């Protein structure tokens, strides 16, 4: 049926092999280049796009002031598609072909972890954004993490929650846990269980669900049947939404409910869930409360919102953008203080100095994590309707812990909306 001779077949393969050189013909120019992969598609894209806007605002700011080390800053980035597989290729292209001067990570753990071997091999100083516990295995001394969780991340997301539980009177007895079969949830629950044990709570339910669960009612119903005083969820954005909706549907009530719920920091879920969020205790990294008025944060958020509106990206800008901007502020300060692009000198600066940023004064500690963790425990209070404007005001996302940033009082219990 097919008469293609071997010679012809090989003849075709020759040109096809030449096609493999295609990727190498995509190039760039002079100026101070900062290279990174960023998730602009795939599961992490919402955060990735928001972070990219923050980086771009910073680049514009720096160039308006005359650049970095007297050179114009240029951001060189590629879409890592939220996957580890594209990352080695992207970072080797950035370093070998585009010849960027500085590299930073993309958003979140998976793309960051996949870049580490190349980074370590080349001895580059590397800042990462919201990547969880990446350096625990590598122990690389030129790694610096912009994640408010600090060196003991697994406890950070639940410590505030359970310290608040400990203040309740009468003392609660039982707790229920649930979370996704995925990296953050698993880590968060490990820490949560220990935090709960420390204050003497008894576990009455502890099960996980697969990441593509449709229906959360069976899970929430099982939790309700166990009758816990405290309910702790460790969830990703779609689960957070599903769990909260199921909670109201099934009519689950508790003294305190919430936990390490990713997604509640984004406008999409805040507006979608609206009043269903009332009295849920969750974690934030930044909210417009009077106790968190860092210098420059308000102006930054306003400028971010202008650009985000144009690009149809996350409109509130509380979760990633301020920290992405702060990351670049720190990098700028370190490079300027070092006076050069030498990785060892930059790393030295990053290790030793305290940096003023739009999210406060920051210092790095062991392993490149924040010396002082700052995961805030907050509570939604007084949410009415689904409008986004209310979330831009203080008083709706009240910070309860730590004491340094406290801006209101804990309201208990959590009651589902009456039907």
């Amino acid at each position, binding site marked *: *049926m*097919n*008469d*293609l*001779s*071997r*010679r*012809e*077949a*090989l003849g*075709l*393969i*020759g040109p*096809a*092999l030449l*096609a*493999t*050189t*295609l*990727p*190498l013909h*995509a190039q760039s120019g002079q100026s101070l280049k900062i290279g990174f992969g960023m998730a*602009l*598609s*795939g599961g992490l894209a919402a955060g990735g796009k928001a972070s990219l806007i923050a980086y771009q605002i910073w680049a514009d700011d720096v160039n308006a002031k005359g650049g970095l080390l007297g050179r114009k800053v240029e951001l060189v980035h*590629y*879409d890592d*598609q939220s*996957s*580890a*597989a*594209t*990352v*080695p*290729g*992207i970072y*080797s*292209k950035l*370093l*070998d*072909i585009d010849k960027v001067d500085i590299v930073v990570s993309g958003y979140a753990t*998976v793309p960051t*972890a*996949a870049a*580490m*071997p*190349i980074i*370590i*091999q080349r001895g580059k100083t590397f800042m990462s954004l919201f990547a969880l516990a990446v350096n625990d*295995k*590598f122990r690389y001394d030129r790694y610096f993490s912009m994640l408010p969780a600090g060196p003991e991340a697994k406890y950070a997301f639940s410590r505030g929650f359970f310290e608040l539980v400990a203040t309740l009177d009468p003392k609660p007895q039982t707790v229920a846990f649930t979370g*996704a*079969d*995925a*990296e953050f949830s*698993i*880590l968060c629950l490990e820490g949560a269980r220990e935090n709960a044990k420390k204050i003497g709570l008894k576990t009455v339910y502890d099960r996980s669900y*697969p*990441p593509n669960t449709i229906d959360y009612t069976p899970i929430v119903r099982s939790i309700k049947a166990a009758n816990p005083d405290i309910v702790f969820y460790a969830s990703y954005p779609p689960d957070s939404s599903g769990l909260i909706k199921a909670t109201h549907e099934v009519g689950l009530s508790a003294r305190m409910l919430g936990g390490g719920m990713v997604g509640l920091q984004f406008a999409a879920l805040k507006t979608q869930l609206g009043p269903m969020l009332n009295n849920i205790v969750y974690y934030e990294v930044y909210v417009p409360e009077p106790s968190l008025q860092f210098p420059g944060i308000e102006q930054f958020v306003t400028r971010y919102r202008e650009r985000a509106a144009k690009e149809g990206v996350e409109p509130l800008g509380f979760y990633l953008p301020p920290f992405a901007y702060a990351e670049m502020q720190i990098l700028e300060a370190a490079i300027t203080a070092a006076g050069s692009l030498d990785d060892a000198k930059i790393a030295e600066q990053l290790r030793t100095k305290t940096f003023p940023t739009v999210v406060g004064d920051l210092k790095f500690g062991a392993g490149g994590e924040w010396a002082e963790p700052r995961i805030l425990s907050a509570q939604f209070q007084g949410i009415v309707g689904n409008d986004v404007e209310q979330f831009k005001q203080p008083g709706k996302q009240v910070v309860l812990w730590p004491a340094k940033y406290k801006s209101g009082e804990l309201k208990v219990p959590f009651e589902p909306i009456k039907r």
Partner: protein
Amino acid sequence: MSVVAKTAKDEVARSATRGGWLGPLLAASIGAALIAATFLVLDWLGTDYAYLAAYTVLQFVVLATAWNILGGYAGYVNFGSAGFFAIGVYTSVVVYQTIQLPILATIPLAAATAGLVGFATGYLTLRLRGVFFSIATLALAIVLQTLIVNWDWVGGARGVYVLRPQTVPVFGSYARYLFAVMLGLAILSVLIARLVENSWLGQGLAAIRDDEVAAECSGVPSLWLKLMATTLSGALMGAAGAPFPYFITYVDPNTAFSLSIAVNTIAMPLIGGTTTWAGPVIGALLIGSLQQYATVTISSAANLLIVGVLLVVFVIIAPNGIIGLITSIRERRQ
């Protein structure tokens, strides 16, 4: 061209496809020349990036060739290639966590595990229509993913770190080493495919593809042939997965079971041509390079869109792929 010369040329061509001694010798020498040329070109470009990009493309050569042994030769579509690939990946992870063998020793283990699973799946479903086999492979991939996600020891859903040495003796950078390993696998898989194609196994599979009932009536042991093809195909896909943990260093189920692998593994042979070993190779080289190019130039969601559109267009216009197009142009000229 003189009659003598033309006859000699035809003789070579004919013996090349039929597999006499001249054919393999020709293939081996051309193959060796190509290998040397590739290394020279890549060394000249001198960068790890070239090696890593080429690694991915070659990985698809192996996957596409493996898929085609069952899909193109026998006509049975495997939608679960990501599952077999992931078996290779996680066998490699298990080895890394326990006995720490070098990659070259891990590859046969991964191939054996994946081949075994292929055999088992085939045994359960190949007695039925081809479509049910396809659906079963889809289901298999999902079941495997659920199992891995629940297996904490290989990292479960959390993922696992696989640390690799910075340099390797002889090869220098690790990227170069990985590239060499995958190049070896690619050549091996193509040789195996060619061997199958020209053997009694290949002829039997072709008979099954054309008309399974008729083949059975004329005595072709279709179940056993299909089982062999499934096992071989699965084993090669597992082999392709074995070096992957060392390539990305952070293995989580989403990356290992990536749907991009399942799509590409099917698109590449269909675009290149399914009836012969050269088709998947051409498809993989072209589409793979295109995707690597797209990754560093345009947005990536469009990347998959391109693959999907190309797949549909080729399947409608050129159902026998690029090879089919060329054959029909040649036939029309004659």
